[in-house]
């Protein structure tokens, strides 16, 4: 489709034949159409179009039907739909093929068309949109140092989006802080995540959810998920876990992560990396956690991933239900409606329509090897342990002077507890003797 001038000043001829029956018309087309056709009808047509109807009729759009037909004809001339004539038997109303119409009698009821007033012709306007993608079930994985309060709001939002149930499995692994620095701990978390996802997949299949899970992961959850799918590549193809579309938020995977191999192996279908340019946590990841990077601050370098940039937003802002836009919509709701839901449901060809996409201008360059979170734990962990010991020592020394008082309180309260238990035991014994 060619590019067009400003939406408010198109000429009538601009759009003729410029449409495409496989995509939705852009917003400016509707403005243009509204300038020359009845506004209420155009609005109804737009509503039906946005609902992705693949077939329009004048009776379904009108009244008035004559204007509706005129509007649909215009819509067809502009190239957004094709006009078709559908034939029906006048007697039994069966839909007839061209071959059926060429015959004298209806193959369904054996009645001659002519005897019943001739074949009924219905004019319909059709288009061939790619089918919307099906969201079957979703997994939400939270980040470190959080219990994932956003998961609750996200679950509610997803599960109330469709008329049918779309279950959201919330994977929680507790608060992890120092653990993310330790290789063995990360491996354990990764293993637990895999076990859980495998179990969920098995259960989902048994309950009739035949599709693959879509995944939403935040922060350290992105690292866990990314390394899980990377690990799947080494497995037998029949044993691999496979996922649908993946949304990464505050991502700490390396910007040169090999999504190409993962996608080619069919382990994930598509990936969206939504990041805030004001994220202060992500840049630290590369220096502190092995095999990580600032993709949640600058995007992935390859074109396998859809990078969506959110100016000035911080590490968890996209998930916030407290922060709101000027129109009162929460950041979470805005992210979901504007980016995530379209990403989950649009056909692959239409993913290009998702706004605010960027490709990083320069390739990412990693740090020198010792600075890539490789050596950091060897300093950080002794430092943290020593600092904790030091803190305990300092606090302990402060309390040591109060020892006479605390001793007396301890003895007195201890005796009190002992007396209470003795009294309870005596009461029970007395009741037992009397029973």
């Amino acid at each position, binding site marked *: 489709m060619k590019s067009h001038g400003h939406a408010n000043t198109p000429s009538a001829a601009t759009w003729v034949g410029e449409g495409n029956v496989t995509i939705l018309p852009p917003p400016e087309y509707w403005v243009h159409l509204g300038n020359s056709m009845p506004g209420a009808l155009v609005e109804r047509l737009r509503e039906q179009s946005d609902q*992705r109807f693949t*077939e329009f009729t004048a009776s379904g759009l009108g009244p008035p039907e004559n204007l509706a037909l005129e509007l649909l004809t215009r819509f067809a001339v502009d190239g957004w739909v094709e006009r078709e004539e559908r034939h029906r038997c006048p007697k039994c109303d069966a839909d*007839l093929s061209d071959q059926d119409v060429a015959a*004298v009698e209806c193959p369904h009821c054996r*009645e*001659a068309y002519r005897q019943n007033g001739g074949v009924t012709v219905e004019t*319909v306007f059709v288009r061939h949109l790619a089918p919307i993608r099906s969201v079957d079930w979703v997994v939400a994985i939270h980040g470190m140092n959080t219990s994932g309060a956003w998961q609750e709001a996200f679950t509610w939002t997803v599960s109330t989006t469709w008329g049918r149930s779309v279950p959201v499995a919330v994977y929680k692994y507790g608060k992890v802080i120092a653990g993310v620095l330790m290789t063995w701990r990360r491996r354990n978390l990764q293993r637990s995540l895999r076990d859980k996802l495998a179990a969920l997949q098995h259960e989902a299949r048994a309950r009739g959810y035949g599709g*693959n899970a*879509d995944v939403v992961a935040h922060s350290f959850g992105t690292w866990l998920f990314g390394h899980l799918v990377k690990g799947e590549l080494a497995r037998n193809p029949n044993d691999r876990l496979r996922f649908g579309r993946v949304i990464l938020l505050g991502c700490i995977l390396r910007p040169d992560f090999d999504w190409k191999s993962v996608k080619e192996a069919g382990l994930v279908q598509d990936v969206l990396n939504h990041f805030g340019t004001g994220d202060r946590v992500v840049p630290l990841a590369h220096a502190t956690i092995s095999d990580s990077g600032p993709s949640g601050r600058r995007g992935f370098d390859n074109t396998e991933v859809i990078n969506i940039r959110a100016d000035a937003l911080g590490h968890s802002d996209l998930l916030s239900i407290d922060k709101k836009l000027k129109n009162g919509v929460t950041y979470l709701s805005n992210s979901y409606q504007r980016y995530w839901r379209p990403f989950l449901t649009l056909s692959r060809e239409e993913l290009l329509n998702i706004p605010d996409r960027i490709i990083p201008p320069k390739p990412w360059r990693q740090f020198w090897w010792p600075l890539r979170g490789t050596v950091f734990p060897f300093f950080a962990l002794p430092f943290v342990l020593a600092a904790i010991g030091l803190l305990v020592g300092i606090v302990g020394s402060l309390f040591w002077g109060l020892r006479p008082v605390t001793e007396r309180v301890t003895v007195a309260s201890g005796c009190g507890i002992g007396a209470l238990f003795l009294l309870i035991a005596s009461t029970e014994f007395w009741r037992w003797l009397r029973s």
Partner: protein
Amino acid sequence: MTPADEKPQPTPTEIADLLRLASGIIRAQGNRFVKELLRGKIRIGANKDEFERNLREGIENGQLTLADIRSWLGSVEGWGNQHVYLYAITSTLRRELTEPKIRQRVTDAGLDSVWNGETTLAFPDEPTLTSVSFNDSVLRLVWQECSPGWTPVPEKNYQEEEGLDLYEYRVFRKVERRAITRFEAHVRDGIAGLFIPDPIQGPEHKIAVDEAKRKISLLMDLAALERGLMNIAAISRNLDQKNVPSNTTPEPSVKAQRSRLASGGAYVEFAANSRDKAYWEEPAIEDVRKSVRTQQLRAFQGAEGVFIFQPGDSGLIRPLRVQLYGVDNRVRLWAQMEVSEVWIILSKLRTFQ
């Protein structure tokens, strides 16, 4: 060309037989099938008159022989445009269906005259069993009937006034049709089908079924066969369910143009207005359909449905339309088909029991 390659000239009787076939049976087949017969043998022609002239010339000068037509008719005549009752062959029945046993039963039933009967030129006036054969583990029974077909010719209708009443006379033209009823048991594959041609409708359909079963019962245990009658309602339900798009199969190989799910005394029906589309191609309808999950399916009997098998699926080269009637466990094949197409579809249906 060497003398061995030269075809012998047809005898006058052969030519007469072939011309009779050409005027009736050959023309009754769909254009695409006739073109297959003629391709490379004679020039097809641009219109109906040319086609008939070329066909006649081809027969008279020996370019089109009875052997050609015999093998071609075997694969296209009586396949498609028919109703099918599908049976799973039980292990008990399978033991009965061997060539020596069948051969013996054919003799016992006094049907020796039709054993491996040649059917190309048979035009019996009544439905008649014209062939029983057993080849490659396939038992075949063929009934033929030269049924008078009547096509309305409304332009010749007329009205007459008699006294105060007006009468309308509707004109029909007689056309020569040969209706073929078949029973085929593919013993090795464990599947059998009774095929009743579409032109046989209403009470005649039931008569044809009863007659076929009467003859089948002479060759095998009919009760054992009936026990294997496939539950088409369940097949319709499961076929529909398995072919609702998911994110792993966004474009299923079978399109459900219409599907009715019944539960007790009520039903819900999903249907596309267009005969070529699946109902789930409209997103809002797909959304509603997806609220029925596999584990809830047992609450529904599938009542009936119209399904379009897509090209590429198991070797099909064109979309084919099939209607399933749960009420009387009947499958209707909507287009004329080749024998291979029919069995691809029926074998596929069996997997959705």
